[in-house]
């Protein structure tokens, strides 16, 4: 069966520090991968999605970036965190048929201090 792993679960980082969040999927190949950020009362904001290795689409211009170095690995990064980067980050995957819905990871709670 397919599983999605996301880590770390929680992270407290100072302003200006770098960030690396990792997401991996098991049990499937060539998944569509997504990074969402969730802020309280504002739903989920799509940050990046990827349909293949090295293929990244950015939805929101900001100081975050994403990479997909391997088929089932998706990384969210920042060179210098801002206070406004605090939030709950969720990785998700879907198959070719995106209308079947997403499977989400358990999320990373990022607090920038």
């Amino acid at each position, binding site marked *: 069966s397919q599983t999605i792993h996301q880590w770390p679960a929680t992270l407290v980082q100072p302003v200006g520090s770098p960030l690396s969040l990792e997401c991996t999927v098991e049990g499937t190949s060539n998944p569509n991968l997504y990074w969402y950020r969730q802020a309280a009362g*504002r*739903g989920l904001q*799509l940050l990046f999605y990827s349909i293949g290795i090295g293929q990244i689409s950015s939805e929101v211009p900001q100081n975050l970036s994403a990479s997909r170095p391997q088929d089932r690995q998706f990384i969210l990064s920042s060179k210098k965190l801002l206070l406004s980067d605090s939030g709950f980050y969720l990785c*998700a995957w879907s198959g070719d048929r*995106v209308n079947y*819905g997403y499977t*989400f990871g358990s*999320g990373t709670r990022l607090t920038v201090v």
Partner: protein
Amino acid sequence: AQSVTQLDSQVPVFEEAPVELRCNYSSSVSVYLFWYVQYPNQGLQLLLKYLSGSTLVKGINGFEAEFNKSQTSFHLRKPSVHISDTAEYFCAVNRGGGFKTIFGAGTRLFVKA
């Protein structure tokens, strides 16, 4: 651009009472509709989805939703809620199988004893 509006940010309800969580969307093309549930500090889990066919869709945990094309709505219902249904619920819209799924701001369901 498509959007999703969840009309209630919070819904308190007593245990064993019925509940309806409202969702309206805007799109001029065919859409796929979803409801997800999120328990505290966890990722989202797919409750149900509408792709085509019967407008009444049944999902997990006794939830169901009805697609109403003329009113562009996809309201979620449960005839009798349990304490364990306390969570945040998200309505989501995917336009024609594209790579982007848009989420509503969420509705917090509080089930009281």
